[in-house]
């Protein structure tokens, strides 16, 4: 299986590139400080997501579901109950499920295992209502606890490497009546749709800015959007079929974006126009 070996080597090379930002530590730190400064200015009057995050913390601690349990024993990757910094290291491979999970799919796992809330119930819920509204609040709480942390996605597990490659394919996958892929809008520097600037997600800087500033509060419609919602709306603009909530395509894309952004900074929840 000569071909497979060659691919394995090039995979390692690719992953090496992604994780070797240490070489640019000085520049990184500069960019990091600048980004934090800009964000501080933005939230000087208070982040509109604060209230949601407070409600989310309450939900995290309150027993719920058929098993009447709280989420306090949920393991987001840093051990049961550890929330601080956890979102900055997601998505990650979880040995207990044998899967790569992003924040929302991991929370669904916890809700199912600890509280007995069926995954499908969350998936089927309309946006910003019922189970999804609970999810939004809990997500707001968890990402607030990673605000200012370094994006640090652990790419060492083979399943993470595989998800990265699958996510990259998804990112460049042109399809549908407009022939668009994510790369059509997010694959070059300095691109705009109307006046909306689009980060170049194929590069570290753009990936860090794009990935690291979601979930976010959108001032234009006074809505809090999780990353799953962000991706759903980009697919909608792309004119594809609809991605299923928490599906592997969305997780693979998230791995691709987060790993490309490794070394950047989480400014979450973000504030968007």
């Amino acid at each position: 299986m000569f071909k497979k070996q060659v691919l394995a080597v090039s995979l390692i090379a690719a992953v090496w590139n992604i994780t070797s930002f240490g070489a640019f530590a000085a520049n990184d730190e500069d960019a990091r400080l600048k980004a934090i400064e800009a964000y501080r200015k933005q939230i000087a009057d208070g982040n509109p997501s604060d209230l949601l995050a407070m409600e989310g913390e309450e939900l995290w601690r309150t027993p719920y579901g058929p098993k009447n349990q709280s989420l306090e024993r949920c393991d987001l990757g840093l051990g049961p109950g550890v929330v601080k910094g956890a979102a900055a290291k997601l998505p990650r491979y979880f040995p207990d499920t044998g899967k790569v999970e992003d924040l929302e799919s991991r929370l669904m796992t916890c809700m199912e295992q600890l509280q007995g809330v069926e995954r499908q119930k969350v998936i089927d819920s309309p946006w910003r209502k019922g189970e999804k509204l609970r999810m939004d609040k809990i997500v707001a709480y968890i990402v607030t606890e990673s605000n200012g942390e370094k994006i640090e996605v652990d790419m060492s597990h083979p399943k993470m490497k595989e998800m990265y490659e699958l996510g990259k394919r998804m990112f460049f996958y042109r399809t549908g009546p407009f022939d668009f892929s994510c790369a059509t809008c997010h694959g070059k520097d300095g691109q705009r749709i109307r006046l909306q600037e689009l980060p170049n997600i194929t590069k570290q800087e753009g990936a860090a800015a794009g990935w690291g500033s979601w979930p976010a509060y959108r001032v234009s419609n006074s809505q809090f959007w999780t990353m799953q919602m962000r991706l759903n709306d980009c697919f909608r603009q792309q004119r594809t079929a609809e991605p299923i909530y928490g599906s592997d395509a969305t997780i693979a894309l998230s791995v691709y974006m987060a790993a490309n952004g490794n070394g950047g900074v989480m400014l979450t929840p973000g504030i968007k126009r």
Partner: protein
Amino acid sequence: MKPITLALAGVLGFATPLAWAGNADLDAKFKELVDRSFKTTGIAQKERMIQLDFQKLCSALEAGEKVDPKKIEELRQAQEQTIRWPSDGKFLGNWKEGEKIAQSGRGLTWTDNPDTVNGGGCYNCHQMDQKELSYGNIGPSLSGYGKLRGNSEEVLKYAWRQIWNSKSFNLCSSMPRFGDAGILTEQQIKDVMGYLFDPESPVNKNHK
């Protein structure tokens, strides 16, 4: 007429099949991933996730895979075969209607319904009327299009073909195939052409 150049520059490489780097295992996993991750919602059928031949080739090319330039040229020529010229031989419609089409980015999403009138969303990617400040830059500026190029049959045919099927010039163009993919009707394309070429259109009137 504007010379028709193919975007082949920089495309190196040798003949490989349409697959990515010959990794059949990952190809199969990717196919399964797409299949279990998407669903039909409203008018956005799950079938939209099936790639056309050129979409597949352009995905590989844009992700940095090696693609056979002969294959690119072959598929581009096939796109040429899709061009249909205006049935009554008239290229130019009503620029006022054309302006609405250029402004509207509606249509074909799963939140649209079957009788949503599709827009062209031209302003998403192009500058057109210089007085409209909200324009994107994925495509070149089209301000003063008719004023600068005149309206010889060659020029009209070039623009029509670009709008009908941009892929007939540049296989991996970012611009949708408005005619070929049925996004706009023949009449809508005429109106948008009017918007580009009519001397009274703000695209030309406001061009400085």
